[in-house]
């Protein structure tokens, strides 16, 4: 029986030794593979942010009560947002730095809105591993460069919230925002 089958299959072998049965084998297994992937994809994708998480609103922030030298923390897309009014001294310190010497070169002007350089709006998320840097609250450690200091792994940011020291690779992120009036901004 086995011998008969063997002779049969060799008899059917066409040119290059490729049989129709080989094609059917590959086609069948490939189809099962496609089916397998189609099952696995939704099993993975269910872990991505759900519709309610993605339906993120923008945030309006009232700046009227923030004094020069003061910062507030609020939330934007469930993460902390720092809004700081810089003092002239802090602006001068930030402008004094040659951007080309920085790990992530940016000037203060590039990080703020024209004519309103004193308003520094950044995410309060350390670009290393995501802790909230200290420095926004009164009396908190602002680090060596007078901006923010992340307690998790020791990253220091300057008065323009640019990374100056430690393991973080980027400056604190500036989200998309615009002034809706002289004392209010819309983030997002």
């Amino acid at each position: 029986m086995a011998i008969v089958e063997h002779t049969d299959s060799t008899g059917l072998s066409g040119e290059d030794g490729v049989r129709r049965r080989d094609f059917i084998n590959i086609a069948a297994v490939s189809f099962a593979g496609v089916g397998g992937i189609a099952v696995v994809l939704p099993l993975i994708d269910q872990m991505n942010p759900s519709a309610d998480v993605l339906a993120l609103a923008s945030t309006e922030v009232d700046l009227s009560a923030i004094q020069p030298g003061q910062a507030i923390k609020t939330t934007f897309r469930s993460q902390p947002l720092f809004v700081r009014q810089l003092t002239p001294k802090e602006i001068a310190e930030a402008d004094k730095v040659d951007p080309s010497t920085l790990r992530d070169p940016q000037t203060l002007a590039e990080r703020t809105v024209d004519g309103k350089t004193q308003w520094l709006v950044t995410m309060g998320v350390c670009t290393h591993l995501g802790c909230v840097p200290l420095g926004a609250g009164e009396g908190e450690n602002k680090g060596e460069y007078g901006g923010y200091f992340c307690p998790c792994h020791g990253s220091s940011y300057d008065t323009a919230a640019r990374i100056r020291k430690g393991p973080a690779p980027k400056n604190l992120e500036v989200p998309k925002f615009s002034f809706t009036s002289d004392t209010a901004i819309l983030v997002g």
Partner: protein
Amino acid sequence: MSFPWAEQYTPKNPVMVWIDEKLPLPRLAYNAVGAGYPVPRNLNYFWNFGVLAGLALMIQIVTGVIMAMHYGANDLVAFSTVEQTMRDVNAGWLMRYAHANGASFFFIVVYLHIFRGLYFGSYKAPREMVWLLGLVIFLLMMATAFMGYVLPWGQMSYWGAKVITGLFGAIPVVGEPIQTWLLGGFAPGNASLNRFFSLHFLLPFVIAGVIILHIWALHIPGSSNPTGVEVKGPQDTVPFHPYYTAKDGFGAGIFLIAFCTLLFFAPNFLGHPDNYIEANPLSTPAHIVPEWYFWPFYAILRAFTVDFFFVPAKLLGVLAMFASILLLFFLPWLDTSPVRSGKYRPTFNKFFWILVIDVLILGWLGGAPAEEPYVMMSQVAAAYYFAHFLIILPLISRFEKPLPLPGSITEAVLAKYGKTDGEPVAVPAE
């Protein structure tokens, strides 16, 4: 493996005979951990830690399933349901403290288990697969412990979740989508807590499955022993039961005494007080540190503070931290010395203890704040850790002159008690 002289399973009771013919499960147990499994006669107390790790896993599974009966995996109630377990559930405080301290004890025994293997060359041929499976268990343990720590939704829980998923965010290009996928959002939230609960429940059973493979792989060549000399004949072994069941039972008693001492008298000694503060997404605690059993790896992560060519410091730290464990997968091929046990390797012996001290220092540095001189010390200690495995160990294996090995396990045992003359010399197995 069963040596040819292993005792045979012969059921006498008709019920056992009936079972043996249908499903020989008692036979399997007899041959695996019963009298049917001969084990080297000279195992010291460092060979207790495998059983203790199994015991620790059982404590975690039992207390964990109980905790899950009272826990609400939702960011609004998670913290308060844990408090409720502590205050209102009958013996809930006991379950919770046993589970929390159980994790610490699990890591204590597993670290001793690993260093036992490192010293006595338990990773060497023919036991490489035992070692590799053990490392898989270790990685699963760390993942499980991490996700469990997130569940109470305290400050350390929240920021630990953020930082550890942030490790994946360091991967170029695909990193951020992976982090978002892990968290189910842009920051830890209810979606993260929910899935971590589900996976924290699942993984211990995966660990139990890999442990079965670990034990199976161990039972093919049988246990190693402090001399590193293989079993040569029946005189080198004793049946596992009752000899090692009794010895393991004694070890388990000591383990439980130590465990209960901490559990009842200092249940928060190994924990972090900030996890009694509910999670606050707007404020990272100033003194954030991971659990003590992650400290050595945390110190390696933090040691990288400067960019190297085009690789950012953040990615370097993450790579180094994972590499510090993945490196161990290659250990059987990095240590090429034919001598197994560190007892007969004078140079290896010294460097082994330096490594132990180095890892302890790394642990201490991981718990210290991220400032000088700790950062610089972490860099030195981390560099030494890698140098040990990648440079020192291969060189020692090549140039070291080992001490003379005993002819057999029995010879070593008898020499220890000064009874060398007149005793039978080892007879090779047939």
